[in-house]
């Protein structure tokens, strides 16, 4: 494109066809440079070196055929316009190519120089337009995100002030409050909480849209989470005289999910249920396994409300959707709750849907993946079709001092985990998901495909990294230990799947024992020696 020339990359293996196209190019426009190659690999290499103005592409080359050919070119240089040179008999394929981003096609054999020139020029122009559109779309999205995050920040400042002074009055710090005044102030405080939730939703939705929501999955007991959501919502339900019931399938194993985020989803669904259920109705929250889909847990929130019509059902997970016929449309929210719930569930690899009939209540359901250690471990413990020679389970225990505040300690654990993740080799080691909710003492486990000798180096690195930056100074202590995982002897014929399962079970057992044995408090002899381990031995339960 520089100095006004059109740089044409012609990828064509038939010398006759190539010559003909070259001739037509020269006939038409003098300001054309043609680079002709006869293999796709050469074409891709040339594109990587210097992107051409346009690619003329034959689909059947010595090293690539059919749809694969244009897909590979589009993949390599998505911004370069591509025109296909198709044979008489594969116009159908050329049409398919147009749907996938190819700009145009010419049928070999009846190409005129005028036609070729026009097709190329239009292809280049259209591609430039697409680029401009895409850029402006990105800019607009970025601008909207910045605007929303700015607005929500600015809204928080006066809201904080209202919150502070209302609570000062309510707590009697500015003199006694009579019951009527308290009633009014409570109303103000409720509105403050509503406004705060709306600002939070606004930011969350923006983040969801730009793919910036983070989730921290761990292995969790879904029943505990459901119970927690129920107890958090029981007051609201009671105030509206709506019953809250739970049904938990006893077969459910651990789920791999971010507990805070899933709690957020459950609370959102239960809160909606309460909102749209008349007094004396009830809400049922269930978690169960479905035989047909054994890798997922099914969660559902069913209400006895007035149900949702088919039009609303189609739109209910959309951003900013609000039921126009809502009987309870008093400042209920921005219409972002279900949109955020959907984004969160999908980030976990699950799906969310609603079943409902007008007059017969609604059931919102979503799925979450069941935690499978074998699936998680398999890329680490299997290498080129064989089990690794040695695997070590490294245990990192964090114990807080009694004086450490919960918030600060949670931060220390979070930072430790992030640092720990940077201490391991991505392709050889895996930091196992943490079991249970963030509690007092935290134990992280690393399955490392290494032997005890090298595990020692790894433990040293972990200790140094965590002590350097995780903030243990005044909050707690750190202990790192390791033990070898006994590997099953690989007899011929044992399927790899079973071997992996055996290792996973072994590690689960070791990990469970590690978690069950309470961290040893500091004793008179100082710290329990960090890094102690018994080479080749298994962890023994106390």
């Amino acid at each position, binding site marked *: 494109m520089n100095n006004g020339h059109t740089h044409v990359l012609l990828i064509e293996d038939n010398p006759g066809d190539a010559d003909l196209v070259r001739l037509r190019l020269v006939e038409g426009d003098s300001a054309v440079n043609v680079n002709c190659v006869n293999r796709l690999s050469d074409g891709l290499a040339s594109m990587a070196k210097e992107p051409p103005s346009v690619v003329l592409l034959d689909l059947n080359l010595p090293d690539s055929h059919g749809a694969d050919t244009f897909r590979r070119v589009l993949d390599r240089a998505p911004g370069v316009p591509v025109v296909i040179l198709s044979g008489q008999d594969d116009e159908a394929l050329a049409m398919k190519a147009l749907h996938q981003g190819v700009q145009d096609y010419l049928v070999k054999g009846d190409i005129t120089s005028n036609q070729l020139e026009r097709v190329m020029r239009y292809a280049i122009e259209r591609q430039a337009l697409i680029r401009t559109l895409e850029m402006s779309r990105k800019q607009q999205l970025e601008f909207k995100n910045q605007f929303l995050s700015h607005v929500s920040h600015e809204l*928080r*400042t006066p809201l*904080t002030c209202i919150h502070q002074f209302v609570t*000062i009055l309510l707590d009697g710090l500015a003199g006694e409050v009579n019951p009527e005044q308290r009633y009014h102030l409570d109303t103000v405080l409720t509105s403050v909480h509503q406004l705060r939730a709306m600002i939070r939703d606004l930011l969350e939705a923006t983040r969801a849209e730009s793919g910036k929501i*983070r989730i921290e999955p761990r292995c969790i007991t879904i029943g505990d989470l459901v119970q927690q959501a129920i107890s958090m919502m029981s007051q609201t339900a009671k105030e509206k005289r709506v019953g809250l019931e739970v049904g938990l399938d006893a077969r459910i194993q651990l789920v791999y999910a971010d507990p805070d985020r899933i709690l957020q989803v459950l609370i959102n669904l239960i809160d909606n249920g309460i909102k749209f259920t008349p007094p004396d109705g009830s809400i049922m929250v269930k978690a169960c396994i479905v035989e047909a889909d054994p890798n997922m847990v099914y969660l559902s929130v069913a209400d006895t409300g007035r149900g949702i019509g088919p039009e609303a059902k189609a739109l209910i997970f959309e951003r900013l959707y609000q039921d126009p016929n809502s009987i309870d449309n008093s400042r209920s929210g921005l219409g972002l709750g279900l949109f955020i719930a959907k984004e969160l569930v999908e980030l976990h690899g699950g799906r969310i849907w609603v079943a409902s009939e007008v007059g017969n209540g609604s059931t919102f359901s979503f799925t979450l993946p069941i935690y499978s250690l074998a699936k998680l471990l398999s890329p680490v413990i299997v290498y080129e079709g064989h089990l690794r020679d040695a695997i070590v389970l490294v245990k990192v225990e964090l114990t807080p001092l009694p*004086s450490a505040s919960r*918030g*600060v300690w949670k931060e220390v654990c979070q930072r430790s985990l992030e640092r720990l993740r940077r201490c391991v080799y991505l392709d050889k080691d895996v930091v196992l998901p943490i079991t249970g909710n963030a509690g007092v003492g935290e134990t992280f486990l690393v399955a490392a495909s290494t032997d005890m000798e090298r595990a020692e180096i790894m433990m040293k690195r972990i200790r140094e990294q965590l002590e350097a930056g995780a903030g243990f100074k005044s909050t707690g202590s750190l202990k790192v230990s390791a033990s070898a995982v006994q590997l099953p002897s690989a007899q011929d014929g044992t399927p790899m799947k079973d071997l992996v399962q055996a290792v996973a079970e072994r590690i689960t057992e070791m990990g469970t024992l590690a978690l069950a044995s309470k961290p040893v408090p500091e004793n008179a002899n100082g710290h329990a020696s960090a890094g102690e381990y018994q080479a080749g031995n298994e962890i023994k339960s106390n």
Partner: protein
Amino acid sequence: MEKPKILIVDDDPDLRRALKIRLRANHYDTVQASDGYSAISVAQKESPNLIILDLGLPAGDGYVVLERLQNSDSLSSIPVIVLTARDPQSNEQKTLQAGATAFFQKPADNNELLDVIRATLPNAWPGTAMPS
């Protein structure tokens, strides 16, 4: 016995006033600063036991204040609690790495904030460990 002294750094005078009322009711002394520059000078003059710090400040934002505190021999040991309207996702880790002890987004829950203040202050004031 002398009460622990907390420096409130925020450019919103109303919020400073509110925090002062809340903290005094919980038996803390307070001093105030309204920008990043005076935050450091007040800290040097008053030697507070803890600092509550906003991030969006004139004359040196919260990050500048954190850096100056960390680089000062006399001030680096004072615990700092960040209390800001800014987004935790992009600021929480950053402030903690810059030396803050805890992070709260406005509007923060009073009890949680007081819990962290209590836990963060060195136990030199047994009488105030559990305010009435």
